[in-house]
């Protein structure tokens, strides 16, 4: 071989060329696939919101179902005042659309709550008004999130779905299973002093608490914390909302 492939200069040049090439390839791939990935995420979000009110949906046919059940998309500020409301179909490019509020990003950001707005989805199912609240929190290893649906009294939980990124399979990861989510139905968020908890397995549960997962204590507590914290913000809205009077 004409050149010495183990010289320092060659090693450096090789490394630099390799990194630039790989970087360019991956960046262009990521850019070209981004729109499709975004669409998939929006679809998944719709499926989750529908899941919270107990409406099954399938990928590829979510939007019409979503438009049928979700009547209004509302955003509120941290004091419970309504900021914006929208009906009709979701526009993924419109930043004003409450559907496009990225609650996960807001949760991570250091901005004070007064600068953020919080989305709320008003739904109609079998003639009943339901309200879906997105929640985000911390599990043991990474983010956890979910959607909690409230009945028309804005107090009783109608249904809930949770998901996670990297919780332990068989333990914390079980929060996405039906057996964990089902007991949320019929529980209440406390209107006076918000406190809602996921308690240790076996401990007696009240109207305001749900049985946790054995071995998944930190994830379970994270679920309780995120529901409690988020509902604290929405309660201000619920108490002043006209429909909450009944």
């Amino acid at each position, binding site marked *: *071989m004409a050149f010495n*492939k*183990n010289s320092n200069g*060659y*090693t450096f040049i*090789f*490394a630099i060329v*390799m*990194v630039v090439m*790989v970087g360019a*390839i*991956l960046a262009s*791939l*990521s850019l070209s*696939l981004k729109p*499709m*990935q975004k669409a*998939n*995420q929006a*679809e*998944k979000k719709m499926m989750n919101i529908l899941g919270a009110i107990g409406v099954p949906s399938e*990928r590829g046919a979510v939007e019409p179902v979503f438009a049928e059940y979700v009547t209004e998309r509302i955003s509120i500020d941290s004091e419970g005042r309504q900021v914006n409301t929208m009906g009709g179909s979701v526009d993924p490019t419109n930043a004003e659309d409450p559907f496009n509020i990225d609650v996960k990003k807001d949760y991570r950001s250091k901005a004070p709550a007064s600068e953020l707005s919080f989305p709320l989805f008003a739904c109609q199912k079998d003639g009943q008004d339901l309200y879906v609240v997105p929640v985000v929190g911390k599990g043991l290893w990474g983010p956890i999130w979910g959607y909690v649906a409230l009945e028309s009294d804005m107090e009783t939980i109608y249904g809930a779905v949770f998901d996670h*990124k*990297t919780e332990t*399979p*068989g333990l914390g990861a079980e929060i996405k299973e039906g057996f964990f989510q089902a007991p949320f139905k019929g529980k209440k968020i406390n209107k006076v002093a918000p406190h809602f908890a996921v308690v240790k397995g076996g401990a007696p549960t009240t109207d305001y608490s749900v049985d946790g997962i054995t071995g998944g204590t930190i994830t379970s507590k994270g679920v309780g914390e995120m529901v409690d914290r988020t509902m604290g913000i929405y309660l201000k809205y619920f108490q002043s909302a006209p429909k909450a009077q009944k």
Partner: protein
Amino acid sequence: MSTETTPAVEKKESLFSKKNRKLLTDPLDDSNPITVQVLGICSALAITVQVQQAVIMSLAVLFVMIGGNVIVSLMRNIIPDRIRIIVQLVVIASLVIIVDEVLKAYSPDISEKLSVFVGLIITNCIIMGRLEAFALGNKPGPSMLDAVGNAMGYAWILLAVALVREVFGSGAISFPGVGQVKFLPEGWFYANGGFYENNNLMILPPMALITVGVIIWIQRARNRSLIEEN
């Protein structure tokens, strides 16, 4: 990592010569990456609850393995020795990211299920092992065969374990698009007044290890050459 290296092919040789065919068949039994070399156990435990997931994982590994082996083999004469491990890692990691991004765009459901494990492919020691032990010293053709052989050796163990676990753990096998196919009549299940109950332990990771152990046992009982002399 494997110590087995085949010397570079000297004269022109058919791609499917006897020696090259051995590259394909050896990893299926005599030098199986999971049961003999005990590599890639981590993903074998994590991803074998459902046959469906095992198939996807195997395909992903097959793709990354072929890609990695061929690319590293093509570059074997220009890779500086001192940074060869880093180069291998970059090649594998890039391929894995490509798989991940494409899955996210075209098959988000599968991508969700595999989310953690797709990342685990990067650390799958079978792939690194083959790059280091084979692709660095051989031409692209044999390297590809070696990759296919090892990926298949990995795949059949994964499938066998997944089959056992899903059948006994869930009492059914789910196929994409078809849903769950049950083997026993509904009335046999305990919940419906029958006598049969699915074994939930099968779903948990320890049973994967035990199942792999049983496969190793059977394999050694049949293939005496694998038994160490003591």
